[in-house]
């Protein structure tokens, strides 16, 4: 392979200058003449019927342009009052009933924010309380109150085509995987391990809360500026919801201040569109931090996991995973499916049984969160793998390495794994933490321990990325892509790939920000899929342009196109740099002028093969995998339960690193974010009411929480069809942090924590229980 000029180099971010000067465009900085501001009245009940809404006083307040209710939206001609990516179950504003505390009920658009908020004080709503269900394990019982009477599939994504509607149950999606004979294996086992693990709801907390600006332009076209990770989807959703043809909808996304999954699918866009339709004015809605907590969460998950051991090996694993998806399914079914099928781990296990249930409750809706549900299932399976290893006297690292899948072996779905560096990741993690070094004897009240965890995520398949590359006559290029730059560095990655393919300088590539008028369809910017999918699309488009350049040069210089290469803004014969042409000369030769462009489009669309609905078996369930391992060393203060993470190593197989520094940054950022989720993040609900929905009460990792010693380790197992062998890196560092910490705690103290977050109180209680002196239940009161 020829040496690469830009790919594999840690070039600086394309967006560094606008960002470091604070000049980067954000939706919140866009103003329109006469723009209205929004405030929303939200439900105080977890589940209630709306009896009456009295809003005439609010409407009469000076400066108020509209006071809108769900009943009014339902009467708007041609408007579907419900939206959602898996089920059309979420009302733009509550219709007839509310389903969680925080459910939007009445929206005010007014000339300024304070007037909008004042108007809310003048709205009265009468409710009749309904029985609510706020426990996911209660919600699955047949006698539980129903959150929704019927389920209406959305049919928005190919991978969710199998989602069924019409059930009389809170289970809106049930994934099943069956392979081998689990019952027989349990009957014949030497030992059976059964554990239940829980992972709480949490908030994404992007520093920029959701914000959307909508206006109708002089052609009456719907214009949307929105902080979204999925501009193409937003356009489709608005077309379906409001009956507007797609060419009359323009969705633009500038830089966004973090997403982590929170800004996927439609969020504020349907409501702001409804307000703009009614008021005929530009309308902008920016969520407050408190509203952010009431908009989307990370799934609370309960996992029951049972594992059979025979002759020191895992012979069977049965997993029941319960996803609390809240009042509206959001993307819960996709998470229940894609994460569900990985719930037994990256191991060779002959008999596997998985039930993954996506369940409605009267909680804030849950959706995608960096890792797409996989951190929650790995929390269960790799905590238990460690429990088993220690219980049967095996070395935890060797116990994982032995059954870890090798290249070409079948995953639990039957899919043969490719580019699967799980063993290498485990080995690297063990080496970094000096696993095999003998431990010093421990005395006193500060105990140290080491832990390793491993796991794997599969990329969402099928999905689609389209891109257009335009080469200008001066040898610069514009790239049209709907991938959203949300901090991950996609502009830089795409710039490197296109520069490499066209043989031009990185600085000569400009990435056009998502604008559905000009940038082609892309499924979502999420799930670590952009480098592979959009990277392939921009590369293929550039390759097409290169072929056109080669055609001209071949005829001019009487060379064979196969002998031509690009570099330094020129096309030349391989090995004979002086026999070539500059891009400008090629344009002159082809067009006779320099004011021209060459454009090409390409689409990357990996497919999956059919998955059997009863057994979860599929010849190909995913395009590629993200193996992950984390090693941690902790110090536990046995008197206070306080935990110090002394060392943390985050290992991820990213495929070939297009930008090694950025891959490391992704691994580490995901790991530190998940360190916060492991140690203290939890949205606490009391009867459906969120009690810590503000940054005064909800803690996330700060600079003080980073371990004394920590390092990312990039494992590069090239993928045969990735762009230059790349896969992706956005989530890999998130996957295995929590079990690595819990495993280290057991190593240090012998106690096992099965519920996240791992607070000092939980550690102290576990230590007391181990001593045979359990603490009273209410000690915290």
């Amino acid at each position, binding site marked *: 392979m020829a040496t690469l000029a830009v790919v594999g180099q840690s070039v600086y*971010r394309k967006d560094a200058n606008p960002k470091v*000067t*604070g000049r980067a465009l954000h939706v919140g900085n866009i103003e329109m003449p006469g723009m209205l501001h929004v405030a929303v009245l939200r439900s105080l009940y977890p589940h209630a019927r709306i009896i009456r809404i009295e809003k005439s006083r609010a409407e009469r307040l000076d400066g108020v342009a509209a006071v809108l209710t769900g009943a009014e939206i339902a009467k708007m001609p041609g408007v579907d009052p419900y939206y959602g990516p898996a089920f059309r179950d979420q009302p733009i504003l509550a219709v007839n009933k509310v389903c969680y505390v925080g459910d939007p009920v009445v929206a005010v658009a007014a000339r300024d924010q304070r007037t909008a908020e004042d108007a809310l004080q003048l709205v009265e709503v009468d409710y009749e309380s309904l029985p609510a269900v706020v426990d996911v394990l209660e919600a699955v019982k047949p006698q539980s109150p129903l959150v929704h009477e019927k389920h209406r599939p959305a049919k928005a994504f190919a991978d969710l085509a199998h989602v069924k509607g019409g059930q009389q149950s809170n289970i809106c999606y049930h994934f099943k995987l069956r392979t081998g004979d689990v019952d027989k294996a349990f009957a014949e086992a030497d030992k059976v391990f059964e554990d239940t693990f829980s992972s709480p709801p949490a908030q994404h907390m992007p520093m920029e809360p959701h914000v959307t600006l909508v206006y109708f332009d002089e052609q009456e076209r719907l214009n949307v500026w929105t902080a979204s990770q999925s501009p193409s989807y937003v356009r489709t959703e608005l077309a379906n919801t409001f009956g507007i043809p797609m060419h009359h909808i323009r969705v633009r996304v500038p830089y966004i201040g973090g997403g982590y999954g929170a800004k996927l699918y439609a969020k504020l866009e349907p409501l702001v569109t409804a307000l703009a339709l009614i008021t005929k004015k530009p309308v902008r809605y920016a969520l407050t931090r408190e509203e952010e907590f009431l908009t989307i969460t990370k799934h609370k998950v309960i996992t029951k996991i049972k594992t059979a051991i025979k002759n020191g090996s895992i012979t069977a694993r049965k997993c029941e995973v319960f996803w609390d998806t809240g009042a509206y399914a959001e993307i819960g079914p996709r998470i229940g499916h894609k994460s569900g099928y990985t719930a037994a781990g990256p191991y060779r296990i002959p008999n596997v049984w998985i039930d993954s249930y996506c369940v409605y409750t009267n909680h804030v809706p849950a959706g995608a969160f960096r890792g797409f549900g996989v951190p929650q299932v790995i929390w269960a399976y790799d905590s238990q793998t460690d429990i088993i290893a220690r219980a049967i006297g095996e070395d935890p690292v060797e116990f994982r390495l032995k059954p870890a899948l090798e290249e070409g072996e079948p995953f639990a779905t039957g899919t043969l794994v490719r580019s699967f560096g799980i063993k290498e990741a485990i080995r690297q993690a063990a080496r970094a933490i000096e696993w095999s070094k003998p431990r010093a004897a421990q005395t006193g009240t500060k105990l140290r321990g080491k832990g390793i965890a491993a796991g794997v995520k599969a990329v969402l398949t099928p999905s689609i990325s389209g891109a257009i590359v335009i080469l200008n006559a001066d040898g610069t290029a514009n790239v049209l892509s709907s991938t959203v730059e949300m901090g991950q560095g996609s502009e830089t990655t795409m710039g490197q790939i296109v520069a490499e393919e066209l043989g031009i300088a990185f600085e000569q590539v400009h990435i056009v920000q998502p604008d559905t008028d000009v940038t082609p369809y892309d499924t979502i910017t999420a799930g670590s899929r952009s480098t592979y999918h959009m990277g392939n699309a921009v590369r293929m488009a550039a390759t097409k342009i290169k072929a056109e350049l080669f055609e001209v040069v071949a005829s001019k210089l009487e060379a064979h196109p196969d002998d031509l290469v690009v570099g330094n803004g020129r096309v030349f014969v391989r090995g004979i740099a002086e026999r070539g042409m500059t891009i400008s000369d090629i344009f002159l030769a082809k067009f006779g002028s320099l004011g021209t462009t060459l454009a090409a489009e390409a689409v990357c669309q990996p497919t999956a093969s059919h998955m059997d609905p009863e057994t979860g078996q599929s010849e190909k369930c995913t395009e590629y995998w993200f193996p992950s391992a984390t090693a941690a060393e902790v110090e536990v203060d046995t008197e206070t339960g306080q935990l110090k993470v002394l060392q943390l190593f985050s290992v991820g197989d990213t495929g070939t690193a297009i930008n090694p*520094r950025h891959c490391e940054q992704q691994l580490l950022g995901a790991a530190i974010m998940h360190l916060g989720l492991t140690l203290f993040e939890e949205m606490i609900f009391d009867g459906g009411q969120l009690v810590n929905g*503000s940054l005064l009460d909800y803690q996330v990792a700060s*600079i*003080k929480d*980073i371990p004394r010693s920590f390092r990312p380790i990039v494992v590069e197992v090239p993928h045969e069809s990735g762009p230059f062998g790349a896969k992706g890196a956005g989530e890999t560092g998130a996957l295995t942090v929590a079990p690595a910490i819990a495993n280290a705690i057991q190593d240090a103290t012998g106690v096992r924590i099965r519920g996240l977050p791992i607070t000092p109180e939980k550690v102290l209680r576990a230590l007391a229980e181990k001593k045979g002196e359990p603490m009273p239940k209410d000690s915290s009161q």
Partner: protein
Amino acid sequence: MNREITLGINGREATIKVEDADTLLEVLRNRFKLWSVRESCGVGACGTCTVLLDGGPISSCFVLAVRVAGRQITTLEGLSDGQSLHGIQEAFVSERALQCAYCTPGFVLSVKALLDEIPNPSDEEISEYLSGNLCRCAGYADILRAVRLAQERLSTEAGRPRK
């Protein structure tokens, strides 16, 4: 109630009418269109809206504009001359201490205040000083390195030896 106040903003005096309830953040954004100042938590807990008040960092979402009448305010727009980057900004770029960068203006200004106050901070002092600024991309290691680099460059410029 409406009041007329004078603020020194990025070195220029400005006299404006504000309402008592207007936060400094609202005034800087809505009246002066200083878009580097951004709201995030609204309760003074995340540092995103940090500006310098007479050189010291404050959360502008949590301060009423009338309370800072007559005082000097620096936003990121006022940190450099607009032609070139400030040494701290250069260090943030070099160390890639920004991702989504919504928190970056607040961080850069906090680092400015830190290095003005403690020219040679220890790791603990840096962590303590910056613990009020949150970065959800969690690029804290890069930010730490950027502080070190900025400190080195600024010390060299000022002719100060490094500790």
